[in-house]
């Protein structure tokens, strides 16, 4: 909440989480697609993120298959972005005079999104509390201007601020409330169930089928011949970059589930990543044609 208030004060639009399963806040179209094209942008939001292979049945003190990221994207990246970021740490109660904050080289690359950037992981007393990235490419397109992206792992940050060692022990509401709830009360059950589901139970044949459906639908939506989809009033073609990107997100999550089920060999893995990247690239190509992407459709 304090992060949202802070970034709101810095002029970011405070958005809501995207309503599809994503692996990280970066997948939200407010980051992936909006990092493209020339238009200025500033947004911040919480994004529940799912990483099927990280499930530990709720036992690991800081590894979860479902967790929350706080994500900020500002385009073009302002010259004082580092100071703005440090301000956000102060806003959540980290005293820079007492704690050791460090920017340690960490280049970011997402092979599934065809994206990369340079930046750091930010350490607070030796713990990674954020990722700080200057996007250079998304979906194979050069980012012009460059966006600055900040990602906070909310559980970790909260554990740090509250001084708690196991994520499940963290209070989720006011510990003095009539019904005090911990993170574990809210999420232990789901972590157990989803860990089992992701590793052992999810139906492989169905996942493969759904992956191919999503892949085909993404391509179909963007194919101008199969899908002219003109606006009935103006006759202008509507490029469906966002609906197609939804399919790309789905394909990516299905791939992650298949990976967790252990049915993708190392060589196939590269091929699947390449297929998702091809979708991301098509969506990026489409987005830059739209009005929001300041392309021809504008």
């Amino acid at each position, binding site marked *: 909440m304090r992060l949202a208030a802070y970034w709101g004060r810095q002029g970011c639009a405070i958005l809501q989480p995207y309503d599809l399963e994503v692996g990280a806040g970066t997948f939200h179209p407010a980051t992936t697609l909006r990092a493209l094209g020339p238009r200025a942008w500033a947004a911040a939001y919480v994004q529940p993120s799912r990483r099927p292979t990280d499930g530990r049945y709720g036992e690991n003190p800081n590894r979860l298959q479902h967790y929350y990221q706080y994500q900020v994207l500002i385009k073009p990246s302002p010259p004082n972005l580092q100071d703005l970021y440090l301000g956000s740490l102060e806003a959540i109660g980290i005293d820079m005079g007492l704690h050791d904050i460090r920017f340690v080289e960490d280049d970011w690359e997402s092979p599934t999104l065809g994206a990369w950037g340079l*930046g750091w992981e930010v350490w607070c007393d030796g713990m990674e509390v954020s990722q700080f990235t200057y996007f250079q490419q998304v979906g194979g397109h050069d980012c012009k201007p460059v966006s600055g992206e900040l990602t906070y792992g909310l559980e970790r940050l909260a554990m740090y601020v509250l001084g708690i060692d196991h994520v499940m022990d963290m209070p989720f509401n006011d510990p003095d409330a009539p019904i005090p709830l911990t993170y574990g009360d809210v999420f232990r059950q789901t972590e157990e169930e989803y860990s089992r589901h992701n590793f052992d139970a999810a139906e492989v044949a169905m996942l493969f089928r759904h992956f191919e459906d999503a892949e085909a639908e993404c391509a179909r939506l963007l194919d101008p011949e199969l899908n002219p989809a003109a606006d009935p009033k103006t006759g202008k073609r509507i490029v469906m970059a966002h609906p197609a990107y939804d399919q790309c997100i789905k394909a990516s999550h299905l791939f992650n589930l298949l990976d967790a089920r252990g049915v993708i060999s190392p060589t196939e893995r590269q091929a699947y990543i390449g297929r998702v990247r091809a979708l991301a690239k098509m969506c990026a190509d489409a987005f830059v044609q739209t009005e929001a992407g300041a392309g021809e459709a504008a």
Partner: protein
Amino acid sequence: MADLLLELFSEEIPARMQARAAEDLKKLVTDWMVENGLTYEAAAGFATPRRLTLSLTGLPEVTPDTVEERKGPRTDAPEKAVEGFLRSTGLTLDQLERRADKKGEVFFAVIRRPGRPAAEVIAEAVEHAVRNFPWPKSMRWGAGALRWVRPLHRILCVVSDEGGTSLVPVEIDGIRASDETEGHRFMARGPFRVAHFDDYVAKLSAHRVVLDPEERAHRIWHDATQMAFAVGMEVVEDKGLLAEVAGLVEWPVVLMGEIGAEFLDLPPEVLQTSMKEHQKFFSVRNPKTGRIERFVTVANIEAPDGGEAILKGNRRVLAARLSDAKFFWENDLRRVKDKGIDGIAAMAGPLASVVFHQKLGTQAERVARIAELARDIAPAVGADPDLAEQAARVAKADLASEMVYEFPELQGVMGGYYARAAGLPDAVANAAAAHYRPLGPSDEVPSEPVSIAVALADKIDMLTGFWAIDEKPTGSKDPFALRRAALGVIRTILENGPRVHLSNAIARAQWALNGGDKPAHERFDLQRADLLAFLADRLKVALRDQGVRHDVIQACFDLGGQDDLVLLVNRVRALQDFLATDDGANLLTACNRASNIVRIEEEKDGVEYSMPPDPMFAEGAEEAALFAALDQAEPAIAEALKAEDFTAAMAAMAGLRRPVDDFFDKVTVNAPNQILRRNRLCLLNRIRHAMRQVAVWEAIEG
């Protein structure tokens, strides 16, 4: 004379790039200046996480005037040619001089360039350096097009002399140079002005920045060792980590903390690797227990609580990391503990589906080959064949352990722990731990017989395999570290002294690669010969530091069949010693002379003078003496060689020197009498053959 101070102030530069960048900045700026006539006396480059700094002293105020003369076309050349010359020189026709030349009258351009103010050249040099900086990776930011390693914020560029300080007018993509910089990010915010380098260093220090990376490293090491000493412990030295940590802070503050008691039983290598990789901590060892019991971390701030909060945070992160490591360690141990070879085999099971290299099969197949080869090599290195085979089968099991999956650099080391936990013999456990060694030129080689057998088998299989699929190192490319493997073979043999016939070992590795068939194919012979030649090349590199001559190695290797490195090196050393004597140097000359004469005459006559010469035709005392000397030396050399006594072989050869010299002095080889001539040519050939028992002398550089 003036001094220049240049600072490029940016967001945090990756630690691994800083040292190189400071050097690159120095080179780019000074090269440009010198090319443009601006000299300097001394240059020094520095880097911190947020700045690259260059200090130059002894600059003139202006560059000297220059005169350049350029010869042009003849005065009667076509107009086009003259126009082109005018364009290239920037002069007009009446400014050209006409001079007489061998070929007639020719235009000459005399281009006078007045000296330029130093500041102008510096400004160009700075812009050139910033725009052409060779960062390993660079980026754009905001809406700009400039590339730098991370966003560049300020350029400080001032020239100073006794008269004061002046700004150098530089502006690059909206960043205008000034005389301002900033201090420590947290402890001294806000910009300040500087006048010259000494002022800059002093003010930075007051603003909590140590400019010189070496000084930062020195302070860290000093404080860390003092702190450890105070509690009776010692810091584990790690130069790479020290340089990296010095590149992560502008104001190093060393803190020491304790490692939780529940983690102290982890192997020291695990503690060390986990702390270094994840946290960039130094390990602190208790010499009494041999365990790693504390850590040293380096903070970037002086906190009012003396670093308590920082240490507490670091301890907590460390505990989380070590919990992971402990989890892996205990899982791995559970699988092998007291289960003997079966436990290890179970751990290694997944290697059957791990591809080593697409064309060289799985890790399991490779292990089977190494086991076979280790068994073969064992007798030569004094190892028990059964143990060597077992050790080879065990050595790579840890590649399937959770710990090595997390920390690949612990391969081998963990294998040793797991083999011991499984209850296997020490020789086997030690071989698992040591078989990757030596990991670099300064790393120790394995020294126990079983370890030697496995280490050699591992490397020979690797070399043979990559030679078979033609993935040899080329130029600077050696992705499979085959040069290191070859050097490992050489050092392991030379430092332990076993007599291994590498050609046989490689042949066995080839058979193993081909499913046990003995391929008699010519291709395999060629590959084997090529690999041996590669090993000989690496041997030259390996022995260069010891003053062993590469041509002498080549001369011995060229004899053929030289695949026993111990023998080869003994021969090389004896020969090199011999060449350093008067007799040796003389014989080398004589041998070359004999070879040359025989070669020339053979070419002339179109025949080979390889028949044994007949002493019956010897005329005069010198020729007869040579026959006698050869009769004596030949069997002596052969016998000495058979006994592998190269010093004796050289001594026997020394006996030839006088008779050979006398022969050349007194006897005419190309005598008019054809019978005598042929006999003498055959005699020269005999000398050559006698000496060729020891080396191919022609390969020795005179």
